[in-house]
């Protein structure tokens, strides 16, 4: 029940927010709700058994019998941390949007909660169709968030975002349908959309022949996830979406939604199509590497802070993809960890940029300068987050990046050698931006606006992020211990993957 509560509580919240009579207290209400949701997720964390690779707290109810579609939720080490990330970021986002979102507040918070449901659902769904439902559902609120509360080119950006993502995921739908039609051979007659039954499928694979079932299915899934991640060269929706999205949208988009793509690789692509994954890993690693270098290079010449961070996301997500497809313990653990890191540090960057935008209404780098003397606290926060983003040790970013690079080195030294250039380029574009924005003589915007340093609310927004940056950098074990068992299990059984099911309250759970 806990997982269902976790997923559907936000729906209830969003309904309540819409029905709430008082407009002035909607924000407080939403913040309270999101904190409640976070508390629920803490209960989940407490009940989770990190020593087991099994699917825990599973719930399964038949939904569409004819297709074997069930309402099947479960959590394991792979999804737990992403769930936590989602619930962690939401209150922060609400608090961060306190001032910046000043119209249609109800609608905004309702959309945010629906989005939360969709994201949690995608992380927890263990049924292909259920997963797809949540996956696609997540597009809608984000579409509105960008489209309604976004910047000047919001419509272009939001449609691009929507169409790109949908184009990818529809192919995945086709693949899912195809796989459902394959399942009778392992279930003994009935169709099933359960991921566990999918895992049992032995899908034929012939190395070198592109038109074999497994390869095609692999690419159908992978395309959907690759667009979401987004991997080079499917990334162009991201800068536009980020630039136009309002701060909370950017944070959630970068923080959680991109992770849905990488999570998809981890949960679906790698275990379902092990042969194809192995055989075509180089394609994705190559794309990942190109993403790392390309994202960094392009970030270097961006005139807009937000676009710069967006391209840095492309670069960072490239690392994650490389880590995933190295298929060794370091790469996978690092990738999973980097998902969290990126969620926090890029999220924090977007929040910071949002705060700046609230003050000056511009994101053009060249118009800033000397901000450090005007906003010292802000500058400190920004630099800490920058350090996390460029993976300075003792911040979270380092752990993930290091492990990924280590994994990449073990996959092929050349991969690590090229990827490591991201370390340099990352520092280059971030520090270049920091220098232009914060240092030097005061720029025209800084002179033109009487700037207030961070207030209590903003400090409250940033503090958890900053704490997490150091906590995760100093004690990665506290976080990784939840996922290592699951990832070891995946690596050990990658050609024969299956998940045991541990259920707290289930009677009807088969196997």
């Amino acid at each position, binding site marked *: 029940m806990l997982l269902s509560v976790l997923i559907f509580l936000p729906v209830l919240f969003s309904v309540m927010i819409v029905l709430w009579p008082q407009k002035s207290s909607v924000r407080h209400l939403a913040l309270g709700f999101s904190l409640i949701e976070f508390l629920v997720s803490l209960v989940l964390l407490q009940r989770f058994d990190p020593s087991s690779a099994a699917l825990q707290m599973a719930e399964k109810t038949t939904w569409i019998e004819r297709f074997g579609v069930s309402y099947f939720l479960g959590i394991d080490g792979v999804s737990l941390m992403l769930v936590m990330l989602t619930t962690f970021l939401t209150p922060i986002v609400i608090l961060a949007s306190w001032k910046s979102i000043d119209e249609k507040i109800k609608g905004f918070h309702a959309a945010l909660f629906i989005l939360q449901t969709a994201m949690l659902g995608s992380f927890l769904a263990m049924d292909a169709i259920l997963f797809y439902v949540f996956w696609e559902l997540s597009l809608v609120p984000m579409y509105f968030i960008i489209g309604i509360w976004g910047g000047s080119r919001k419509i272009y950006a939001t449609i*691009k975002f929507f169409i790109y993502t949908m184009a990818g995921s529809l192919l995945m739908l086709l693949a899912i349908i195809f796989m459902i039609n394959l399942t009778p051979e392992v279930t003994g007659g009935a169709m099933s959309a359960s991921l566990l039954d999918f895992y049992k499928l032995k899908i034929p694979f012939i190395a070198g022949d592109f038109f074999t079932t497994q390869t095609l299915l692999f690419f159908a899934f992978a395309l959907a996830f690759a667009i979401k991640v987004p991997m080079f*060269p*499917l*990334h*162009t929706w991201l*800068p536009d979406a980020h630039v136009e999205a309002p701060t909370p949208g950017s944070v959630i988009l970068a923080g959680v939604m991109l992770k849905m793509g990488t999570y998809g690789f981890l949960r679906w692509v790698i275990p379902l199509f092990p042969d194809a994954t192995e055989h075509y890993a180089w394609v994705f690693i190559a794309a990942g590497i190109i993403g790392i270098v*390309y994202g960094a*290079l*392009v970030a*270097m*010449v*961006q005139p807009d802070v937000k676009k710069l961070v967006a391209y840095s996301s492309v670069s960072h997500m490239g690392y994650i993809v490389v880590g995933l497809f190295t298929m*060794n*313990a*370091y790469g996978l*653990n*690092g990738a999973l960890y980097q998902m969290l890191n990126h969620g926090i540090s890029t999220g924090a960057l977007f929040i910071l940029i949002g705060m700046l935008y609230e003050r000056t209404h511009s994101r053009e780098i060249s118009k800033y*300068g*000397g901000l*450090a*003397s005007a906003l*010292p606290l802000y500058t*400190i926060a920004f*630099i800490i987050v920058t*350090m996390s983003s460029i993976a*300075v*040790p*003792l911040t979270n970013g*380092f*752990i993930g990046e*290091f*492990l990924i*690079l*280590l994994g990449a*080195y*073990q996959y092929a*030294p050349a991969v*690590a*050698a090229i990827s*490591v*250039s991201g*370390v*340099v380029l990352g*520092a*280059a574009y971030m*520090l*270049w931006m*920091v*220098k232009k924005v*914060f*240092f*030097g*003589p*005061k720029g025209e915007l800084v002179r033109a606006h009487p700037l207030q340093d961070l207030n209590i609310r903003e400090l409250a927004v940033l503090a958890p992020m900053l704490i997490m940056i150091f906590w995760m950098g*100093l*004690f*990665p*074990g506290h976080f*990784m211990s939840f996922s*290592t068992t699951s990832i070891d299990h995946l690596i050990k059984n990658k050609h024969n993957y299956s998940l045991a099911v541990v259920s707290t309250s289930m009677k009807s759970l088969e196997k």
Partner: protein
Amino acid sequence: MSHQVLIAILLLSPLVGFIINGIRFRSANYLLAGSIATGAVAVSFACAVMLFVELLGLPAEQRRLTVSFFEWIAIGNFKVNAGFVVDQISSIMILIITGVGALIHLFSIGYMHHDKGVTKYFSYLNFFLFNMLILVLGDSLLTMFVGWEGVGLCSYLLIGFWFSDSAKAAAGMKAFITNRIGDAAFLIGIFILFTTFGTVNLHELNALAPAALEAGWLGTVGLATLMLFIGATGKSAQIPLYVWLPDAMAGPTPVSALIHAATMVTAGVYMIVRLNPLFVMAPNTMMVVAIVGAATALLAATIGLTQTDIKKVLAYSTVSQLGYMFLAVGVGAFGAGMFHLMTHAFFKALMFLGAGSVIHAVHEEQDIQKMGGLKKYLPITHLTFVLGWLAIIGMPPFAGFFSKDEILWQAYSSPRGHMLLWAAGVIGAMLTAFYMTRLLALTFWGKSRVDKKIHPHESPFVMTIPLMVLGLLSVVGGWVGIPHVIGEFLGHVPNYWESWLAPLITKLPSATMTAHSATEEWILMGSSVTLAAISAVAAYIIYVKKEGVAAKIAQAAGPVYKAVDNKYFVDEAYFAGIINPLLQASYNLWQYVDVNVVDKATYKITEIVRGGGFIVRSLQNGNMQQYAMYVVIGVVVALSYMLVG
């Protein structure tokens, strides 16, 4: 107190100082901030001394105190603890760092008292020390890397301390990014070592180091060490990554003394000494190290000849001296390298602080052409500066003499040494003597060229005390490592330094150990000292006695002078050859790949689809006969397909 607690206090004390000062960063109370920071470092120094004493009390093989606070990363076989080790090498390092650090902190109280950001300054400084201590104490490559990057970060912050000046902020950025290039290679080195040996623990790595020399041009260990060395070139400002260090002089002068002379920049040397069993097995890497070191020593020294900024001269001198250290470790003289590291820390810190004192006195003027004749205004500074000068040009019995001489001798006599390396070292020494004398002469001696409005004055005690202490150290610092020949001569004075480090230094496994006689050593020693002295005297004549000669020489040298004066146009070459093309390429990538290819492709698809839409619309022309025609054509095609298909 057990050593665990001592190490903890040693590490945490600067961190606490950092946090306290960091929280109250807005305060302008320089005395409080300075006291907190200096006190924190003093505590650390006390711990360092106690640890050193504890080590002394142990038998030579057991001089290794370890502590592990917690497990940091543990994934698969990759296990790294927050573990620290105090042994012969690191104990010396922590003594230098905390000792010199404490003095520089003290000096800063005076130097920075007028600055509004003084609290922030001290917090950075403490934070730097914390990271530096992690670097030297870390028991694995990864913990070392933490400090390695951490000091880079602090360096970045402190160079850009006066960030309102764009050039200074840019200097910080340049330092960080250049360092990052090295760090990236360092990471690769770590990966190679881990993949080969399955550990990143320094102790274990050294124990696992292959017993035989690596065959072939560049083996695994060779590659790994080479990568680590590239990391070191970044941190320790060697060719080709030395360019950041002169720019780093944008930071406050004590920072230059602490970070860019005494401690951080020597980290590369320290790292190589730490991993000497591995480096020894990779002769080719060693050769590269030695050549790079020698070349850097020469190159930087020549540039130093023409610089007019007091700090820039010192900076190039630092680069040059670091070159000596790498020359030393490159020829296998790890002890000598460490030795020079220490003495250099003393005299270079001294000279930087002295320079700071001068700058302070002449109201932030750094151009030596606008100084001169300061001797009478700044007697203490002058005196201590002279001590430093004597040390750096290698006059016996000052500290620099012993360490530099050891290096030159090893460069000549070591199995991995070479006549040319020695020659480079000696020429470097001559050049050093020349430009250092020039610096001294133009600053303190001769006629005053100081602006009339400025009335130079001696610095307060808080600044001169560190100068005096360091001056003393510059004199006596070298006496712990008196070469055997001199030791014999003086009556069995042992080389404490060598014996202290011996357990951790791997002997060069060389069959062709040529015997060198003591006479040979005496001759070489004498010649290098003589040459340096002549060079110094020449400089004295040119810059004090015969003013105007310098200009004539410069004119005569023409393009050579111009090249040297412009630092061989290295920065410009980097900009023209790497940075600008990269930026241009990035811009083109963005414009061509993103905008013109990927997005265009997307638009093209949209265009095609929309074009299809317009075609369909034009077919839908409203004429019902047209529609009927479609029906008929559809029927005909379908029927035909039915027949033939």
